[in-house]
């Protein structure tokens, strides 16, 4: 494990981290503002990837696909909200977990029925193909750098929206006391719907961007969802800033752990066993980090004051 490899893994980790952040941001806002556990948030990411891949194939252009997929993901999120989720805001967490679990079953099977079980391919856009020389002997794919840049940009934009605009102020007010906000004359249900649609669009955006480098397949959102939950729990539920830092942390731990642990295990085990054990330990590492952080700070790194 030399510096070059470590740098590549760190970049991969950060890039995975910003994707995670885009999914976790919607999740943490929806949970923070509406006290609503949405297990189906991961399928928004999957739906985004499918929309992007399909629309890009239809129009023949990555960019048109991306631009069209965003409003489509937003519309899809609003449709789900109208059909299912808004009937669950007043229910307990158990009902929310179960009903959104049902939505996952339906949508995972739905894309399998429509697109088949085989992964879909989405080409990397022409302008972003190729690589960038970061240092001597290290060519890093431009597209991956673009994901990192787009993710950081979106995070900055989100920070601005939440901290510096009136809509963001209402969201923060809703997170700390929704009934009071309603009493002051704000249409809380409309605010909920907006936050929900926005979160769905962010997850869809992450899905479109991930589509060219990951395989677009049914159930692709499930594992990401669990990691996004880990992120919002580590970051402090409801905190966008916490989600950002936790997402980068989880992305780095997951990616670097995956790259390094198999090598580390080789010191104790034979190569094939080392690879498998190392990969499993790397998958567990994130949860260990979460357990340790929660043991020290039960409300996460940046708890939202209520």
């Amino acid at each position, binding site marked *: 494990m030399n510096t070059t490899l470590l740098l590549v893994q760190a970049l991969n980790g950060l890039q995975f981290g910003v994707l995670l952040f885009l999914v976790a941001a919607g999740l943490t806002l929806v*949970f923070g503002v509406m006290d609503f*556990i949405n*297990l189906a948030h991961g399928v928004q990411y999957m739906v985004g990837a499918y929309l992007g891949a399909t629309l890009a194939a239809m129009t023949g252009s990555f960019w048109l696909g991306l631009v069209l997929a965003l409003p489509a993901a937003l519309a899809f999120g609003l449709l789900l909200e109208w059909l*299912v989720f808004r*009937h*669950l805001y007043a*229910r307990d*967490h*158990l*009902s929310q*977990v*179960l*009903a959104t*679990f*049902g*939505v*996952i*079953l*339906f*949508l*995972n*099977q*739905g894309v*399998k*029925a429509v697109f088949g079980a085989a992964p879909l391919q989405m080409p990397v856009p022409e302008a972003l193909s190729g690589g960038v020389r970061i240092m001597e002997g290290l060519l890093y794919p431009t597209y991956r750098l673009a994901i990192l840049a787009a993710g950081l940009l979106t995070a900055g934009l989100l920070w601005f929206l939440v901290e510096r605009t009136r809509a963001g102020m209402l969201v923060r007010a809703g997170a700390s006391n929704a009934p009071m906000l309603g009493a002051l004359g704000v249409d809380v249900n409309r605010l909920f719907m907006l936050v929900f649609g926005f979160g769905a669009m962010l997850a869809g955006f992450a899905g479109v961007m991930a589509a060219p480098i990951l395989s677009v397949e049914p159930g692709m959102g*499930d594992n990401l969802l*669990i990691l996004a*939950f*880990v992120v919002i*729990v580590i970051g402090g*539920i409801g905190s966008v800033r916490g989600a950002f830092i936790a997402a980068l942390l989880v992305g780095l731990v997951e990616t670097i752990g995956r790259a390094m642990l198999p090598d580390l295990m080789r010191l104790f085990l034979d190569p*094939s*066993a080392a690879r*498998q*054990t190392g*990969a*499993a*330990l790397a*998958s*567990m590492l994130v*949860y*260990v980090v*979460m*357990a340790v952080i*929660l*043991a020290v700070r*039960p409300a996460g790194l940046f708890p939202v004051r209520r």
Partner: protein
Amino acid sequence: MRWRDVILPLLIFAALALAPFVGFGQGHSLTLLARAMIFGMAAISLSLLVGGAGLISLGHAALLGIGAYAVVVLDHARVTDALLVVPIAVAAAALFALLTGAVAIRTSGVHFIMITLAFGQMAFFTASSLALYGGDDGYTLYGRLELGGSRLLEDRLFFHFACLALLAGTWLLVEALLRSRFGRVLRAARENEMRARAVGFAPYPFRLASYVIAGAIAGLAGVMLANSAEFVAPAYLTWQRSGDLLFMVILGGLAGPHGALMGALAFVLIEEWLSHLTEHWRLIFGPLLVLCVFFMRDGIAGLLRRG
């Protein structure tokens, strides 16, 4: 007296006992019924947590899987006597429940859901890393457990009644627990933790005890599941499986262990029926789950009570 809560399970047990002799005696039907009864045990143990203690665990499948993997590890070491395997498997699941529960029960609400999910994922990844036991592909057992040297469990009918006896025993145990002082403390702490504390009951040890008991029962169900399929895979431990178990509990209703019992039986039978109708049966199953949450708040038990 809630006589229905007792009569209903007894009727179900009687029907299950008669089933092999009234046209459900073929291999396929018996395998299906065994699966239903095994998940019934697991669901009843989860209902002790969800309905009794108010602990919503999204990692219950891990405990089932640990019981199943204990069978695998011992099978690989050629230890196949039930009298040895069952206690070890149950103890392993109970130990895992004790260690993870000790941490998880310090949290509450959504954090508890997430932490049990995280521990479940840890167990899942551990299982998929066990290269010696097939890793992701799973492990095929040499055969079912022996009972004091005899291969009785290979006999379909005997296995059917073994499952039935364990299911009935589980129901009886959980029902008795919930009716006891222990169960009343659990429910009191669920309804109002502050008041429970005020009258002198710290909920923590009671909740942890219920978590360990539920884990032990789930481990036992895992042993039976491994023996029923003669195959164990990490897929037993996925969080989706934990979601299925929660659905069984809610489908049946939270009024008591009889709800989970009916929920598990209904779940397995509906799943079987739908998967015969269409390959894409989850397209029906998912919305069904949503509709159950919307309109059947008290589950099947609630419907029967009203009817």
